[in-house]
């Protein structure tokens, strides 16, 4: 058996975590709360590091007073906890973050996702696969047209789109199962290779 305390602690916590599958118990709830506490604390540490590097450092070492503006905005996020009457001030930094996110994705979505995907969708129809890809893309787009009353042609497109989307979702479903199985294999390696050496190392 391993002598590494990290392996011991992580394996025992893993087994307690999985014990939920057989019956919910107090130990599991304790471990669940432990994880939430550690995760929240870890996130605070990363946030603190970012604030020190991007606010305190430039402010004290380079005299960049403009960083005080986003620092104040960041502080305003906590206003609802400080004062009920001034709690609405939280909307200001939220408005800034959401606007930046919306603008960034909007401006690049047009070029990279819309035009960037329309161009390769126009391919020569010189093979069955190319025909399926082109038609499949077209009928999938038909499925998402909700602003026009469906005429007979659009109705055919919508029905075709349903089939293509079903296969696409099936592929995502299969990929999802594969991903989940991989995660479970990872936990088995921890417990049965690193901790109790039942699995030989490669």
């Amino acid at each position, binding site marked *: 058996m391993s002598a590494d305390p990290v392996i011991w*602690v*992580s*394996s025992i916590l*893993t087994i307690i*975590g999985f014990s939920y599958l057989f019956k919910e118990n107090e130990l599991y709830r304790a471990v669940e*709360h432990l*994880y939430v506490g*550690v*995760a*929240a*604390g*870890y*996130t*605070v*540490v990363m*946030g*603190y590091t*970012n*604030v020190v590097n991007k606010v305190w450092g430039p402010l004290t070492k380079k005299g960049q007073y403009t*960083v005080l*503006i986003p*620092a104040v*905005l*960041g502080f305003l996020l906590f206003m609802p906890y400080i004062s009920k009457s001034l709690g*609405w001030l939280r909307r200001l930094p939220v*408005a800034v*973050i*959401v606007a*930046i996110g919306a*603008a*960034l994705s*909007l*401006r690049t*979505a047009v070029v990279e996702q*819309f035009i960037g*995907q329309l161009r390769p*969708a126009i391919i020569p129809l010189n093979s069955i696969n190319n025909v*399926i890809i082109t*038609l*499949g*893309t*077209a009928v*999938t787009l038909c499925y998402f047209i909700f602003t026009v009353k469906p005429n007979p042609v659009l109705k055919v497109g919508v029905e075709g*789109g*349903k089939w*293509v*989307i*079903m*296969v*696409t979702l*099936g*592929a995502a*479903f*299969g990929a999802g*199962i*594969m991903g*989940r199985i991989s*995660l*479970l294999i990872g*936990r088995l390696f921890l417990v049965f290779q690193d901790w109790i050496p039942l699995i030989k190392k490669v």
Partner: protein
Amino acid sequence: MKRILPVAISAVVGLILLVDYFLKVPALKQTATEIQDWGLIVAAFALALAAVNLLLIHGKRIAKKDRQSIHSFILIAALLVTTFSGIFIGTRSGVFDFIFRSVFTPLAAVFYAMTAFHLASASYRAFRAKNLQAVALLLAGVLLMLGRAPIGEVIWKGFPKIADWITNVVNLAGSRGILISTAVGTVGAGLRILAGIDRSHLGSGTE
């Protein structure tokens, strides 16, 4: 004021970033860059919101001394120990590294890996082919799983080829259509947010 100011800020910020990108106005480039950098700083502050919320909720539970207060105590203790070790001892210290490797990493992995069991249970109970389209979905998933696992190729050499065809032809068509539709939706949603039509992110207005 409480409603108009945030909407106005959204509109101005969005307009500056969009004009900078599409019209390449040199005078705006510095401002656009500065605004993006401010966004990074505000996002850093936002990381502490969850912790503050947890402290308040679980602090109240401990004060009430109810049945669950022991778990709340564990949560707050874990939060404070992790925070103090990371900030005052350092992120490269033995303590913080131990907490990350022996508590955070395995438990994060466990809670995500549990979905494998739920998926297995759902495969047995819920994945019923009730109509032809459900059959298509299940069949695509099953063929992909057979094609991607080494055993599939051992059973029949055609399974990987079928899986490749599903992924590179039909899935490509469907995903591309979804991607283009999503892009149109992103543009629409973004414009609604920047124009102040969609204000759901600004709260209910009861504060």
